[in-house]
């Protein structure tokens, strides 16, 4: 069963507009959520995160919103730039019994920013 879901495989947005990427999760034990960005032929790079006790975190053009009651988070990119074209992965963290953090990833959304 997919505990973290990104239901949109792809998204196309005009340069300068807002990009909104969505993510849903099912496990209430997740305590931290992260977004990673991945270019082709490179590993994922960390973008932004949010603790489960918060509902918003902002870093420059990137804002992540968390709605715990709906088990939903979203990533907003404003304004969108051509360099934002990449695959975005949502991830949720859970702490195992051994104390180590593990991440559960969504399927990814390919964002294309059109000039």
């Amino acid at each position, binding site marked *: 069963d997919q505990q973290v879901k990104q239901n949109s495989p792809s998204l196309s947005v005009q340069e300068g507009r807002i990009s909104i990427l969505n993510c849903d999760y099912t496990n209430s034990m997740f305590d931290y959520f*992260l977004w*990673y960005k991945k270019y082709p*032929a490179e*590993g994922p790079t960390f973008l932004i995160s949010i603790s489960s006790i918060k509902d918003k975190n902002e870093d420059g053009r990137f804002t992540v919103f968390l709605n715990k009651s709906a088990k939903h988070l979203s990533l907003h990119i404003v304004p969108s730039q051509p360099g934002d074209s990449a695959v975005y992965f949502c991830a949720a963290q859970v702490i195992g019994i051994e104390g180590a953090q593990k991440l559960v990833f969504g399927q990814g959304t390919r964002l294309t920013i059109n000039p």
Partner: protein
Amino acid sequence: DVKVTQSSRYLVKRTGEKVFLECVQDMDHENMFWYRQDPGLGLRLIYFSYDVKMKEKGDIPEGYSVSREKKERFSLILESASTNQTSMYLCASSFFDSHNQPQHFGDGTRLSIL
């Protein structure tokens, strides 16, 4: 800057071969992870390790094993490679208490099993 280095970018092996994928990190991280990335499935955790000689199964450990003899090095082993193990393999590392410090990834090894 954190550096996670995977030994090969591309690898082609034959069915039944024993395959070793190597990963080295230079930030003294306790945790190390192996994932595979497949289209439409995202990243799935194969194995992870939170200390030298310690290993824990992830979500899809079947057909794989791992080795962590030194803190900086984490190896993924395909005991007898099969075509359904053709995939992109990603290694990551992080500090043990890492709420504010995310996992850092290598650039991946694209493995093809013929």
